[in-house]
């Protein structure tokens, strides 16, 4: 009994010192992380399959990726503090240093690149439609005249209005959950946003078999990991972690685990720095 305690203690000390040295080396450009014991990561709390807060903890693809990256940076899963970063808040959270990095369905674009830096991309998603299982929508223009639902002000909603189907009847609500009930009752015909998020909804227990992804690939969304502008050391480390994640098949496993049940046909893992326009 005693011997076991001693070994356990020794192992703990060893683990601590290893993680401490791992962080100690990159502490120069790392103000305010409190000696590197804890890491704060920004995710979404309300997107099933991508980033979701549940009573039992946090689940989703972004959460799995972030956990893997944090592990490569020398933080154990228990050292991670998750912080909700809604779309409008992501750049300021990084600039203020509230979070070390953000993995929150964060599409890389030029405007955002002026404010923050991105590691990755780690997933290529497309804007898509979620429709009732018996519906036939094969191209974007089929949507003209149909009732479509998306989140207020989101890029997906703007794309529909400007490019994909200007004559579609677009309803905008605060959250996708408000849309998805309308889809069930027939008040709307389709729900639109990134296919990864839609797959997460379709895979939820209560919607299984009722809805399907149309698979239209309307746009390309390159999900990157947002970091503070100019932190190239962290960027390199995260890129290395992402490369390793793809190599040792953890990436594939995370995709299958989070999006699999919805028949989501994922793109192959994107190469680092390779942004699909």
């Amino acid at each position, binding site marked *: 009994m005693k011997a076991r305690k001693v070994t356990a203690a020794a192992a703990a000390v060893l683990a601590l010192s290893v993680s401490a040295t791992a962080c100690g080396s990159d502490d120069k450009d790392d103000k305010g992380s409190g000696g590197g014991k804890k890491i704060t990561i920004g995710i979404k709390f309300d997107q099933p399959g991508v980033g979701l807060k549940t009573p039992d903890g946090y689940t989703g693809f972004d959460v799995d990726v972030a956990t893997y990256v944090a592990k490569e940076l020398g933080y154990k899963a228990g050292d991670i503090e998750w912080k909700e970063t809604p*779309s*409008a*808040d*992501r*750049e*300021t959270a990084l600039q203020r240093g509230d979070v070390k990095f953000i993995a929150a369905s964060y599409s890389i674009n030029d*405007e*955002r690149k*002026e*404010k*923050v830096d991105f590691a990755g991309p780690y997933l290529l998603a497309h804007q898509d439609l979620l429709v009732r299982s018996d519906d036939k929508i094969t191209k974007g223009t089929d949507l003209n005249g149909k*009732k479509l639902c998306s989140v*207020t*002000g*989101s*890029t997906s909603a*703007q794309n529909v209005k400007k490019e994909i189907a200007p004559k579609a*009847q*677009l*309803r*905008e*609500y*605060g959250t996708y959950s*408000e849309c998805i*009930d*309308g889809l069930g*009752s027939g*008040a709307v015909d389709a729900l639109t946003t990134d296919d990864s998020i839609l797959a997460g909804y379709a895979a939820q227990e209560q919607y299984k078999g009722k809805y399907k992804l149309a698979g239209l690939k309307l746009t390309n969304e390159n999900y990157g990991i947002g970091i503070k502008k100019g932190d190239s050391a962290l960027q390199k480390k995260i890129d290395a972690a992402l490369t390793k994640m793809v190599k040792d098949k953890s990436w594939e496993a995370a995709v299958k685990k989070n999006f699999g049940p919805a028949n989501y046909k994922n793109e192959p893992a994107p190469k680092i720095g390779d942004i699909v326009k």
Partner: protein
Amino acid sequence: MFDFLEDYDLLEAFWMTVKLTVFAGIGSLVWGTLLAAMRVSPVPVMRWFGTAYVNIVRNIPLTVIIVFSSLGLADVFGITLGAADDVDVMSFRLAVLGLGAYTAAFVCEAVRSGINTVPVGQAEAARALGLSFSQVLGLIVLPQAFRSVIGPLTNVLIALTKNTTVAAAIGVAEAALLMKEMIENEAQLFLIAGIFAFGFVVLTLPTGLILGWLGKRMAVKR
């Protein structure tokens, strides 16, 4: 710094805000005055209805009312206000309905406080002349009451102007919705929020100044 503004129609979004304010303002003024009349009427059931309406509607969050008009009235009960095949028009009308119904509760209370400033003798004298209740209220009491509540009603109107931003929750293309879009695209939270805050000050400050001046001029000196 401001060059991205060219891509967005700020004026159109604020024009939608103005339209929401004007239509909901007129609606709430009419409905609120009727409610106030009910609350001081001699018929118990009307008094009861007025009191119940004000106390219920005023205590429900506006977001709940607006979202209910869209998710509940339109989607579940099929009340589309004559615009079943144009979602934008329908959302606008539902938003006006929700905003008007909510603001009316506050207008009612402002008008009722104005009625209380009119000396009881005025109503008694009018009754003695043989005027009916609606004549007493419409010819004698309300005209005096309104002159004393221009100030409080201005506050209600300014609150309504700002409350129109809640209409973004059901996708009415007004200022708050454009703000969300711009923040999503441009990643400039403080600059964009500042522009919209300024826009609302431009809308509400003159309202307050003009109506405040009017209120002082019109007030009945007793």
